[in-house]
């Protein structure tokens, strides 16, 4: 039996644990689509989409507003009904659930929102207790104990008797997270959960989400328009545009080697790179221009000097950054290379597990 390490409570049967070895899928969308009837015409919000999200992963969905990501995440807990296709959670088609089954299912899927959606008329503690009261299967003592646990988990132990209006945005979102976890869900849906928060508060909320994912083994599906959020905590990402997924993969792959124009836009945006300016810089540079991508351990190797000596090329650095994608360090350097043996230099880089892209 798996235990929540922080709270020392066993998970209910079948939640947060994989029944087969290795990863098993928890959410599967099978040709799911959604369109809205507007004035007798069907306006598609989501094109038929296949998607599998695995147990315990943090899955990011990134896209501009109107790209369909909001619709996609709401199809998982059926706040939106699909107009076609199947939504399978732990192998069961949830679109066929009756009203009571659907409500029981929704208790297994927590959700947090951009604007928190806390009840202003209830205290923090009562907000957290609310889903348990709705469930109607918990005793008063169980609810009290669980609320105390959750307040501790989100570091709001002293704030239980306050009203949401007395809290900061970050604190409100922590209450939202605690409330979403009240009925011990196996999935947490995050709808632009950090978009209304300032950068520092965003960081602390993302840290909390990462911690929850690690310690409770919760599957997290997170939609956002900020690539930075994806970079910090997601394992995999899907990029959406015009109601369909245009690119999907491990965050490191998508982030370092974006293929689709929309993805490139997001990545550049998150790196604060002005592409026109960069282009101008390149025009002044002599020789070949290469973009090197270091990943993991190679990020910290003193490689440039070594390669320069071996191949006799001279280099100047046009742009560069070193950062992390979730827990993986990475670096990206754009170099202009003059003289020496260029072929050899490129081979040396490749040999050191550095991805080389010829820009010019």
């Amino acid at each position: 039996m798996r235990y929540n390490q922080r709270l020392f409570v066993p998970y209910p049967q079948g939640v947060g644990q994989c029944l087969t070895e290795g990863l098993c899928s928890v959410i599967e969308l099978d040709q799911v689509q959604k369109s809205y009837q507007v004035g007798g015409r069907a306006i598609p919000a989501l094109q038929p989409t296949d998607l599998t999200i695995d147990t315990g992963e943090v899955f990011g969905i990134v896209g501009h507003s109107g790209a369909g990501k909001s619709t996609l995440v709401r199809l998982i807990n059926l706040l939106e009904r699909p107009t076609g296709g199947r939504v399978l959670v732990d192998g069961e088609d949830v679109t066929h659930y009756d009203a009571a089954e659907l409500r029981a299912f929704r208790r297994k899927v927590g959700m947090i929102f951009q604007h928190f959606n806390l009840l202003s008329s209830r205290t923090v503690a009562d907000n957290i207790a609310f889903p348990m009261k709705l469930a109607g299967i918990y005793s008063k003592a169980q609810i009290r104990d669980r609320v105390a646990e959750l307040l501790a988990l989100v570091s709001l132990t002293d704030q239980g008797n306050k009203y949401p209006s007395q809290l900061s945005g970050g604190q409100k979102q922590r209450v939202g997270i605690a409330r979403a976890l009240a009925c011990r869900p196996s999935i947490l849906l995050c709808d632009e959960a950090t978009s209304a928060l300032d950068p520092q508060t965003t960081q602390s909320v993302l840290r909390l989400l990462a911690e929850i994912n690690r310690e409770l083994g919760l599957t997290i599906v997170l939609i956002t328009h900020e690539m930075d959020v994806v970079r910090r905590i997601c394992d995999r990402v899907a990029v959406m545009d015009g109601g369909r997924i245009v690119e999907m993969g491990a965050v490191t792959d998508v982030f370092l080697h974006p293929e689709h124009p929309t993805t490139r836009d997001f990545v550049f945006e998150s790196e604060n790179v002005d592409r026109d300016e960069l282009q101008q810089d390149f025009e002044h540079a002599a020789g070949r221009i290469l973009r090197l991508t270091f990943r993991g351990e190679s990020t910290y190797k003193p490689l440039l000097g070594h390669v320069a000596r071996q191949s006799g090329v001279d280099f100047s650095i046009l742009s560069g950054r070193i950062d992390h994608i979730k827990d993986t360090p990475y670096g990206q350097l754009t170099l202009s290379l003059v003289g020496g043996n260029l072929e050899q230099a490129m081979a040396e880089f490749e040999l050191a597990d550095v991805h080389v892209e010829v820009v010019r």
Partner: protein
Amino acid sequence: MMESLLTNVDWVEIGWASWDTLVMVGMSLLFSVLIGLPVGVLLFLTGKRQLLEQPVAYAILSFIVNVLRSVPFIILLIVMIPVTVMIIGTSLGVAGAIPPLVAGGAPFFARLVETSLREVDRGIIEATQAMGGNVRQIIFGALLPEALPGIIAGITVTAITLVSYAAMSGVVGGGGLGDLAIRFGYQRFQTDVMVITVALLVVFVQLLQMLGDRLVLYFSRK
């Protein structure tokens, strides 16, 4: 000095009339809320893009409410006479004034309830749905508590409207301060009685507004 200015004022009479007004407003407010609240909730729920969207039901309810609200109260008082006689047995006095007051107050309050429910953030409904709440839980657990300050403000406005409606009922033989004002102040030209009744009505309205505002403040957590 006071005695000479207020020669016609019978304070015992004024006292009873005030009590009658209080009873009329109190009883009609009670029934207006009892009827108007569920009607307001239904108006909200059956409205466009709401939980229990029912265009036909909404249209019917909305039509009835609009009809009752568009009839001037003084006319409603007269139109209601046969109905009042059926319910109460008489259309006169304090008891006879209550049915038309409710007929005027309930639809008014229902609209105010509908409006305050619409002001609750849709996200609250969505969040409660996402937590597995059913329609009943969404209404009683989330919507009504969140709209409570607005609903209390609505009760205050309705109460004040009922005070002026109740005064009007004096015209068709209702009781209370309005009746006094019409019979003595107007028909017998006793200006002092008119002034006192109006002053009492003003004080009454002020007190209601103050009480309402305090309650709204108490229940507002925003």
